[in-house]
């Protein structure tokens, strides 16, 4: 337990420093955007959502018995919701489609699954202490359910209308076929290869409100070291800092499949490990845990429990 506490504390510190950085960046970006907005029409695609609240409205520190942060959150939430409402969405996915893709939706019969993901979301939020984060979801073995968990976690985050989520399919060798992405033209690999592309080109809407997805892109014969490139780092930085209420989820390959996990881990705030039921031994899990950065590992999700 103490290990976890320590890890959480370290993660908290890192988080705080990063969030501060991001806030700063966000402010700067907001300033820049404001100036840009004044000069040009806001015809940009989906990314037309404007700055963080500090630019629009000065956050009034509400003196709250719960603490300054919570008050801050409430203010932020209120304002985010308004902004988020203006997001561009495509036609929502039907229930059958969602069921086929094994994606949760609030009215589903299997409330148990739904609640598990909701609880997971709450836990993550508690750990994150309110600020947004990027989380890598990986598995110990291939087809261990990391895509399922990542997608549904992102979905769970999108239920809250003050938050948005982004799921990035980083599994270049085995892309997620159930990724609820629409109008996909280019994906991550294209973006990393082509400097001309912008982040907005690859971030597509899903049929799920408030949720965006980035596909992995075309398969390449010779998989280059994509994730160690600066472009990737920048992309992630941009993605996270742009909107304070966007939660990013990286659907990573399993540690067995590729060594990219370590790279991706270094780019994220948290790591979530998915352990499928009756498919891995404890030693395999142990090995996986050793490979990835232990300080960022917030926990394990047990998947496909049959009882």
């Amino acid at each position, binding site marked *: 337990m103490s290990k976890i506490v320590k890890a959480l504390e370290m993660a908290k510190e890192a988080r705080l420093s990063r969030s501060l950085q991001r806030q700063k960046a966000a402010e700067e970006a907001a300033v820049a955007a404001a100036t840009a907005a004044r000069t040009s029409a806001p015809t940009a695609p989906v990314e037309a959502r404007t700055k963080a609240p500090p630019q629009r409205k000065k956050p009034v520190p509400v003196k709250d018995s719960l603490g300054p942060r919570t008050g801050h959150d409430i203010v932020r939430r209120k304002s985010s919701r308004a902004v988020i409402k203006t997001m561009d969405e495509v036609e929502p996915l039907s229930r*059958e489609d969602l069921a*086929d893709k094994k994606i949760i939706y609030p009215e589903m019969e299997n409330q148990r699954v739904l609640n598990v993901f909701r609880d997971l979301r709450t836990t993550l939020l508690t750990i994150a202490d309110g600020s947004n984060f990027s989380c890598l979801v990986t598995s110990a073995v291939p087809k261990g359910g990391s895509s399922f968990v990542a997608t549904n976690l992102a979905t769970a985050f999108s239920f809250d209308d003050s938050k948005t989520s982004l799921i990035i399919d980083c599994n270049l060798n085995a892309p997620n076929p159930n990724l609820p992405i629409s109008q996909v033209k280019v994906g991550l690999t294209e973006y990393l290869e082509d400097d001309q592309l912008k982040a907005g080109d690859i971030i597509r809407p899903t049929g799920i409100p408030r949720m965006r997805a980035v596909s992995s892109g075309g398969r390449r014969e010779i998989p280059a070291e994509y994730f160690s490139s600066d472009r990737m780092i920048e992309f992630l930085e941009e993605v996270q800092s742009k909107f304070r209420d966007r939660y990013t989820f990286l659907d990573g390959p399993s540690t067995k499949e590729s060594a990219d996990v370590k790279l991706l881990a270094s780019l994220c705030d948290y790591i979530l490990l998915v352990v499928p039921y009756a498919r891995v*031994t*404890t030693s395999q*899990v142990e090995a996986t845990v050793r490979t990835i950065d232990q300080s960022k590992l917030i926990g394990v999700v047990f998947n496909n*429990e049959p009882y």
Partner: protein
Amino acid sequence: MMEKTIALFITDVLRHKCLAAMLFAVISLIFLFTGTLWPQRYSASTVLSVDETSLISSLGRGQGMAGGSARGQEAFDRGAAAEQVLFKREVMLKVLEHGGWLDDNPSAAEQEQIINGIEGRTTVAGGKTFISFAYKDSEPERTYEVTTKMAELFIAEYSKLEIAESQEKLAFINQQVESYRAKLVASEKKLEEFKSANPDIREGSERQIGNRIDELGSDIDEAKLALRELEIKRDSLTKKLSGELEAGTNTQREKEYLDKLAELRSKLDELRLIYTDSWPEIISVKAQIAELETAIANHKLVGPDDSTTATSPSGDVTTALYQELRSQLSETETEIDTSTTRIKETIALRELEIGKSRRINKMEAVLAELTRDYETNEGVYDNLLLQRENAQVEHDEKLKSLTLKVLEPAVEPISPVGVQFIHFALGGLLFGLAVPLGLIYLKSALDPRVRLADTLMEELSLPVLGAIPTYMSPGERRRDLAGVAMMYGMVIVTLATYGVVGYMKYTGEL
């Protein structure tokens, strides 16, 4: 924890539902099928009681037959020995005939097979006081018939064996008796021959001879002593005698002198009558008388003169003592002669006896051996005669009575023994359930992979943030339901088959 384990197990089974159901169906139906085909076995047995003193009680113990004690072991397998008696070809052929196997006229090879089959289905066991036969067959009647027949044949065979053995024993003993009788007669003859060749050699003749030798020896010694005595006596006599002779001679001489003197004097007188003293003859006679007187006077002074004794006997000068002594001396001399001769003869006799004794010693050894021989043969012969009598008595007894009695006769079996249909049916269901469940349990027990979130928490101290239950897409669910349907279907089909076959068996159609 327990509920979780059970829940886990059930989920495992459901994960493998198709396979489990198939295994169940296959195993159960195999059992059912085998059960219907399994032949029914009936068993009958009979027990014979064994008389301890009989031959068969020594069957397998290695006695009863001469030279059989080479085996000499106490532990025996009466059952195996009985089997040997029963499974002889002639006996088994009779069994075949009685059991009706020969009705189809099988070939020799087939007969052999049938016999092997029967032997395989027969159990022969033997103890100290019994022999039992147990036989299994597929028909109750035949089982009974074969069992009784086997017992019958066994008793008959065994009696034959007994009698044959007894006769053999008797013959052997007879032969031994004859041979020993011949030996006895021969040794008797030898003894007689020897005794007649050496009549003086008897029991204890050595001792006798020894005594005799001692006797003779002592005789000789005595005689020698006596001889010595006699010699001494002779010597003394001789001495005395010669003394007497001297004395006699002296006396004789004196007497002669005196006689002569008298003569001379008479002569003188005569002369004097005629002549005068101056006559020369008278003078010479006077001188002679004077000389003679002097000689007598000298003789008396001097004593006897030994040199003159030798010639005395002829003078016939005897005194009474001298005569006495002379007779004694001659007596003694005679005695000495006798003694000497006797001694010589005795010595010779003794030598003879010694020679005899040496000879006897040699012969005694031979005699002793012959005697021993004879006595031994006599003893053995007597013993054999006794044994023969016993054997004869036994043999006669045997001819009269059997030593095997049927203790428990066979009974026609009513119900089959061993594994039957119902066992197969129940066993099939049980196995059909147990095997797939067991395998699944084994698989999950041996599977080291993580099944419980607690394991992750405990062993790796990782925080488990959540456990997502199985969530299937509609397609997956459809497949799952199909599997469930198939599982139920197979179980129902199997049970239905069981029901049908069971009913048919019950009503006797199968």
